[in-house]
């Protein structure tokens, strides 16, 4: 009988096979994980943190938010910059990671911090610092950043650097900053008989202009707002600021938007959405959606930072002459924010130096990297947008001059924005959590004709108080 051959040995080996499979599976994981963090320090740089990177140092840096393939021009510039950087530091390997969409999404970012899976150099919003520090995610780079490693340090707007400091220690280097204004579609303004050189300056004027633009028909909306993915709350905050309101009271413990200003914001949105029908039918929009609308001439205005224009030209194929900008309506305060890179806590000091050298070259050198306006122009990206601009003093003069000579955008389109600076106001503490709560307030008035504004505000107030108490 055939089966007589299969005796105990076979049985044992079968058992072994199944269990070995599990064991190997678990053991093999070891080979593919946790091998970062240690590589690279064999290059032998100086042990003094203040000294610049020794060009002989051999390190590999991982970095996120490299421009994705969709941003072809910026990706090309990134590669050129890496090549040029490598002329001076041939032993630093820059390993970029990219995401096609918004490269920082709060939930994914939170998960990444929890997992300590951020790359060596990681992109954050100014508002992320507390969360990063809670997870001890970023290295203190105070000792590494000085006028030798970042020569133009003294010319960087101290307000911008302040948002990257905690208890006097520096945790990041800025890439861009913004203050919000009113972005308009000049073509639709003209069609609606409005003056594109004089964007609305008050919220009442916004409402009137929106109504005219929506009157053009064909599904065109006059004014657009977000109401999802935290961006609704972000813009609610901007509107509160613009009317002189606040989100969190000075103690930082209580919500401060359940008041007349909060009601004005919502009533005006509700009126535009439901009485005037000037905000379009589609709501629950998030960052990226309004840009798509205005780029296809389906939207007249929305609150935006000037750097949105570069995004729209590059990824959405929009024409930059088509856009103009005014200060935020209301003009009491405007939301000021920005983006930056931080360096992962616990990586070697050579890596930190290499990271600072790269960030300095790419983002903090007038005439190089992101401030190489001649190249930006040659690559057909918009030049002449007023922000990002965190320079002061000599650097500002040089940079502004270069922007003007290479301008591809009619600078007068931004004249009202430039001539009427509105004081910037930083985002609230626990910003992303609060924004998430405030999304509901925005979606409430924009999707429900019978929305109960008082109830929306008081519910959000209770939730925000809870978020603030939970720190």
């Amino acid at each position, binding site marked *: *009988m055939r*089966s*007589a051959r*299969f*005796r*105990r040995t*076979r*049985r044992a*080996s*079968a058992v072994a*096979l*199944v269990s070995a*499979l*599990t064991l190997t*599976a*678990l*053991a*093999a*994981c*070891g080979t*593919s*994980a*946790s091998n970062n963090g240690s590589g690279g320090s064999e290059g032998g740089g100086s042990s003094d943190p203040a000294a610049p990177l020794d060009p002989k140092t051999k390190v590999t840096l991982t970095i996120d938010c490299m421009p*994705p*393939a*969709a941003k072809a021009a910026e990706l090309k510039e990134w590669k050129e910059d890496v090549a040029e950087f490598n002329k001076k530091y041939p032993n630093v390997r820059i390993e970029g*990671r*990219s*995401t*096609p*969409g*918004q490269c920082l999404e709060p939930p*994914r970012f939170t*998960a*990444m911090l*929890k*997992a*300590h*899976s951020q790359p060596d150099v990681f992109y954050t919003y100014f508002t992320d610092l507390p969360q990063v520090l809670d997870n001890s995610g970023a290295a203190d780079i105070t000792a590494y950043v000085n006028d030798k490693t970042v020569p133009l340090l003294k010319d960087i707007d101290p307000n911008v650097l302040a948002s990257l400091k905690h208890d006097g220690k520096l945790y990041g280097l800025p890439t861009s900053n913004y203050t919000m204004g009113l972005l308009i579609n000049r073509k639709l303004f003209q069609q609606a008989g409005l003056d594109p050189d004089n964007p609305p300056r008050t919220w009442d004027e916004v409402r009137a202009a929106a109504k005219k633009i929506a009157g053009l028909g*064909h*599904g065109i909306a006059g004014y657009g707002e977000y109401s999802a993915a935290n961006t609704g709350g972000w813009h609610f905050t901007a509107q509160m600021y613009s009317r002189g309101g606040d989100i969190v009271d000075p103690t930082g413990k209580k919500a401060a938007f359940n008041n007349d200003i909060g009601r004005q914001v919502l009533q005006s949105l509700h009126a535009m959405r439901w009485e005037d029908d000037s905000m379009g039918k589609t709501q629950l929009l*998030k*960052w*990226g959606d309004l840009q*798509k*609308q205005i*780029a*296809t*001439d*389906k939207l007249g205005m929305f609150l935006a930072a000037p750097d949105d224009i570069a995004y729209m030209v590059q*990824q*959405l*194929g929009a024409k930059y002459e088509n856009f103009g900008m005014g200060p935020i309506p209301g003009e009491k305060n405007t939301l000021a924010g920005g983006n930056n890179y931080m360096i992962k806590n616990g990586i070697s000091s050579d890596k930190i130096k290499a990271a600072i050298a790269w960030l300095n070259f790419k983002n903090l050198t007038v005439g190089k990297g992101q401030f190489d306006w001649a190249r930006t122009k040659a690559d057909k990206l918009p030049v002449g947008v007023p922000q990002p601009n965190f320079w002061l003093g000599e650097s500002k003069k040089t940079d502004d001059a270069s922007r003007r000579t290479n301008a591809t955008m009619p600078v007068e389109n931004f004249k009202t924005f430039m001539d009427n600076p509105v004081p910037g106001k930083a985002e609230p503490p626990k910003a992303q959590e609060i924004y998430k709560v405030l999304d509901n307030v925005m979606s409430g008035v924009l999707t429900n004709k019978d929305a109960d504004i008082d109830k929306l505000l008081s519910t959000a107030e209770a939730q925000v108080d809870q978020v603030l108490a939970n720190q």
Partner: protein
Amino acid sequence: MSTRTLISPAQLARPRGKALYWTVFAVVVVAFTLVFLGPLYWMASSGVKDAQEVVQTPPTLVPKSFTPGNYSRAWDVMGLSTLLFNTLFYAFGALAFQLVLDVAAAYSLSKLRPVLGKAILGMMLATLMIPATVLVVPQYLTVLDVPIVHRNLLNTPWAIWLPSVTNAFNIFLLKRFFDSVPKELLDAASMDGASPMRILWSIVLPISRPIIGVVSIFAVVGVWKDFLWPMLTLPDPSKQTLNVGIYSLSNGVPVNVLIAALTIASLPTLIVFLVFQRNIMSGLTAGGLKG
């Protein structure tokens, strides 16, 4: 196919019955075609519209503009081949793990009946009642630092493969099927000295082909459909699955390019399905589940 169904053949043979049958048939065929192919047509055709037309109110049923460039742009931007390869790699890896470990477990629980087997089965089935999303947080923390071996599985395929083994429903299906394999058959083989492994391999598995087919489809489809877990555990863009990749793309490109990308992303499996539909359908419906 002359099996008797709900409506009697005699009734259908009558002229009135015939007319009614054909009317209902026509209505159903047209309605189903519209409901199931309509959206797909809409997707493929909207992909060639230009940026203006794709967001035009009212929409156009037949594209007026023709910009096939959307498709090539979508292809460049999306990196479909990487996404597809990743997804298949995870799906078939999970399948392999489930086929080996879950089949072995179901066989043991059904035929070898070890001590505590019932309790173990009970504990496995208990996991069925727990929504995956509830366990996402502790599971995520576990994957970050696997107890005892202290490994971080983030950004590795193990983060998909090993948790996929905890598929109690597949174990349940397999066990139920194995239960129905006649005991005499196995006893006879056992008398002849065949080891449990041998019995599993040459007796149980060959009769269980239908249920293995069903379980395999469930295993692959499970990974194919999953979104939240791979989004959290595979944050590195070069390791993402198709679903997560499309999701990240959705925000960064114009509507028409996005829709072209959706069309492209849908094509590979649609083609596989149309080619192998006979096998897949019969695999899914083969006796296994008649309960």
